[in-house]
């Protein structure tokens, strides 16, 4: 049965699809196997949901308002459930659940180009031509995903994203990218499934020859990715992607119209809902992308009418839902983009790229929430004197801490260079208490 191991097909559920073997697996066996899996999954449910604001959000208009400054813009701050913490008036629902969230207001990250900023924020490392650092989702896949043997779908799912790379951790830890409808393209037909066995037998035979011919690690990676793909496409856990389907064995229900409405009928809201289902199923890292933040012009109209209402609805629904399900302490939330935006308002009533002083939002995960950590100066143009400046590595080290990944973990690049987890960042003291 070596083949089945190599292609991740040592699971009994798969035999159900095998015309040749169907009779040998009693249906009861199959079901109890799934229930056992569900229990196993529940016991180990630490996860992180990253809300990625592609384009760079104007945090000065969302989390760190400056009503007294010429840079302050059009919005007013409002109080939140967290004493002393104010956020934008266009985030009223989020304000109500802010006891479970926190802001880090003294991010200072230096990279103000989209690609470089994204790379830096997601990997904690500055781009370097000789090595590709893993995005943090890939680190979680590597550290936690591998241990979740009952997980049959990828351990790092990106909804509407796709920029992150696994780098030296290997292709099998790359994000699995889906769109917010959860539709997986090129799912196999039943006929195709029934033919997989002989096909994969032959495939393994052919691939072995090439792998054995000294062509480096890529051919091996190809095999691993195929194993993951076969695993995925034959798994009942696929239900997690589709909010309209249920899988009682996994505790997944069809999501009601009320729930879907609560998250917001927009890509971000539906993406967050899918993220919750994936986390329920045991996926340890889900990234949900919301684009359209590159607001060089017309920033206030865009925020007021589109961005913030969706953001507000989505975040508040997610926090409420996770809390109601008793999952919030296990699921760490991170909200960030590649950088913030210029405090100064430009001639097109927009804000440009700004990395020197901006905010990241975190929450859940058993952290000490309800805080605003650090501060910017009165015009928002720099981190306030005496306030500690934070780097992306500090945010990810906090996530690692919350998820139980040892913060002093060191990986090794292909070249043998030691690479500290989160670039050696330190968990943010105020959050871990």
């Amino acid at each position, binding site marked *: 049965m070596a083949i089945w191991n190599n292609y991740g097909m040592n699971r009994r559920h798969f035999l159900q699809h095998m015309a040749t073997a169907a009779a040998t697996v009693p249906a009861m066996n199959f079901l109890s196997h799934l229930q056992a899996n569900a229990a196993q999954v529940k016991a180990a449910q630490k996860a992180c949901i990253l809300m990625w604001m*592609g*384009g*760079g959000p104007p945090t000065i208009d969302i989390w760190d308002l400056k009503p007294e400054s010429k840079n302050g813009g059009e919005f007013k701050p409002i109080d939140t459930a967290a004493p002393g913490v104010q956020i934008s008036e266009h985030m009223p629902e989020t304000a109500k659940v802010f006891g479970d969230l926190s802001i880090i207001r003294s991010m200072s990250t230096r*990279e*103000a*180009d*989209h*690609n470089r900023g994204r790379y830096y924020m997601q990997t904690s490392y500055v781009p370097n*031509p*000789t090595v590709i650092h893993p995005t943090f989702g890939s680190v979680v896949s590597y550290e936690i995903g591998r241990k979740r043997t009952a997980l049959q779908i990828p351990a790092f799912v990106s909804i509407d994203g*796709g*920029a992150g790379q696994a780098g*030296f951790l290997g*292709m099998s830890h*790359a994000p*699995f*990218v889906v769109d917010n409808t959860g539709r997986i*393209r*090129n*799912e*196999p037909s039943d006929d*195709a499934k029934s*033919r997989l066995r*002989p*096909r*994969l037998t*032959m*495939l393994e*035979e*052919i*691939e072995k*020859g*090439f*792998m054995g*011919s*000294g*062509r*480096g*690690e*890529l*051919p091996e*990676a*190809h*095999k691993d*990715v*195929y194993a*993951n*793909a076969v695993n*995925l*496409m034959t798994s009942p856990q696929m239900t997690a992607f589709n909010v309209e389907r249920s899988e009682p064995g996994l505790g997944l229900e069809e999501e009601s119209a009320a729930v879907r409405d609560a998250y917001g009928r927009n890509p971000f809201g539906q993406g967050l809902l899918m993220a919750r289902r994936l986390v329920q199923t045991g996926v340890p890292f889900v990234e949900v992308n919301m684009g*359209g*933040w*590159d607001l*060089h*012009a017309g920033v206030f109209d865009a925020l007021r009418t589109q961005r913030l209402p969706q953001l507000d609805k989505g975040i508040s629904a997610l926090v409420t839902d996770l809390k109601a399900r008793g999952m919030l302490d296990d699921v760490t939330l991170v909200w960030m983009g590649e950088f913030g935006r210029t405090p*100064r308002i430009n001639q097109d009533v927009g804000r440009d*790229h700004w990395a020197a002083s901006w905010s990241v939002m975190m929450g859940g995960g058993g952290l000490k929430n309800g805080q605003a950590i650090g501060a910017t100066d009165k015009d928002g143009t720099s981190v306030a004197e005496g306030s500690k400046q934070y780097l992306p590595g500090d945010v990810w080290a906090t996530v690692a801490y919350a998820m139980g990944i040892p913060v002093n973990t060191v990986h090794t*690049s*292909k*070249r043998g260079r030691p690479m500290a987890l989160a670039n050696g960042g330190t968990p943010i003291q105020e959050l871990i208490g």
Partner: protein
Amino acid sequence: MVSARADIRTTQPKHEPQGQMDIDLERSVTTIWRRMSRMTARILNYRSFALTTSGLACGLGFILQLAVPVSGLMPVEFSGVVQADEVGSAAKAKAAAKAKAAIKATDDKSSGEQASETPAAGSLVELIDQQIRQGWEENEIQPSEMASDEEWIRRVYLDVLGRIPTLEEAKSFVADEDPRKRTALVDSLLENEDYVRNMTTIWTNNCIGRGQPDRVSRPGMEKFFREAFAKNRPWKDIVVDIITGEGRYDENGAVNFILAQMQMPDDGVQLTAATTRLFLGLQVQCTQCHDHPFNKWQQNQFWEFNSFFRQVDKIDHRKLDPQTQRMVDDYSEVVWRNFGGPVYYEKRSGLMQVAFPKYMGREVDQGPETDRRKELAKLIVEPMDGETPMIAQAFVNRTWSQFFGYGFTRPVDDMGPHSPASHPEVLAAISKEFEASGYNVKELIRTICNTEAYHLSSRVGKDNAIDNPSAGETPLFSRMYLKSMQAEQLYDSLIVASNAHKAGQGGWGAQEDQRRVWMQQFIVAFDNDENDESTTFNGTIPQALMMMNSPLMDKAVSIDRGSFLFETLNRPGNENAKIIDLYVAALSRQPTRGELQKVQKFLNGHPSGNKLIAYQDLFWALLNSNEFVFVH
């Protein structure tokens, strides 16, 4: 002499067995190359070299034949074909003169010194080989063995034509006994219409991405490149047309590059960044806000360069849809915008600064009557401090990486003092020759394809495992690095392997449209001012699912009448011949004896008991294999 070595490459050892002769050959090649550093000894070495290899390459007649240029020049027999080239008769005359000089130099032993002044045919290839070998010696490694014909033909088809060879093409090349067949193949591939298709795809993607930017005509951009590469227009003329383009996006397709960079009103910032990155090999986008952290570009230079693009505007035309009586999008066009004087930008400190139109220290008149883009077009082809213009170096670096997977800098579009080239002499020499040839793209590709490095196997050799750029090492080009097929290469290769372009599917034109639609499933747009995108066609699960289950794969392994499998399996011939055809069609090589036995066993023991189904599964497995999906 280079000719001799180049031709030795084409006299490939057959698949097996590897005899003593090959080892001798390898040794003699190494020895020769050590001695080669002394120019005066060239001819003598050449003679002795020829003698040691006479068993393979049959004597003196062969030597004379070799005097015909094999690289860096247009062979005489192809000059008729390239007459449509725009690179000009001057360049051709120069080439012919060089060829003559080369023949003379080779014939006359005493003219060795002179030959170094009048570059001999192939001298550029020779220099490249020598420099690359020097890197191996310095790092104390031996190169991998030469690639077999099977390995090499697949590679050169994918790199030059963007697709694998057909069954017939692979078979006839391997059977061909002409010692010059590799060089001849490169020449003929450059005249193949698929070369034009491939370059058009690559450069259209470079210029406007793979997605669908707003108000950009992909057919327009493609048409522009198709004509440019078909006529082998000088690269500098192509770039000038792109930079200075004005007019409708369907009539002057070159303007689509500019339109793709005008997705948001941004004072030409994106256009500045994309132009420098793509055509000059410089990454300056971050200098719009601050001085570059590593290179000498400063914030003022970004804005100086930017000021060349302030005379650009676009008009998005609308028209009435007679059916719905609504206004809908019509064409877009790039138009002149009246602009003079400096541009203003803000320093991080908040201070406002001015910048005047200036490129690499050369300023142009800032008056509104100056056509700044036309002035820029003149400046970018001028030599700078005795160095080859950046547009030549940038194109050479990119094109080299198209063939080797790695350029001389990393990334290929980030050149400059902060990012020293791995092989500076090679980059400088090819760029210089590229400029001297009148920016002749085909000549450049011919040169690259005739280098020794391009003929090495992708198998890691005995002691060159350290040559591993994927781990971050500097590439030494001592073996061919594996490249993942680009989505378009994979699509076209599946079409070729399964003969779909012949079986009444409407030819390549229709395939192109289908390919475009198919491609969209892999595009992820990032929705920012840089118009960034990525694809999920990157060796991950979505690609694997597509390969295993998609309609495209179903079609490729179809057993319907007219399909490749149907035709192959219904041809007269024994089972082994059919298995071999499937292997050659998919992998451009025959199965080994061991593989053949395993396949026979598989076919006979297939659970369906149906041979046709069994063959179909075999072909499916071949097309899904790592060996298929990598360029090696």
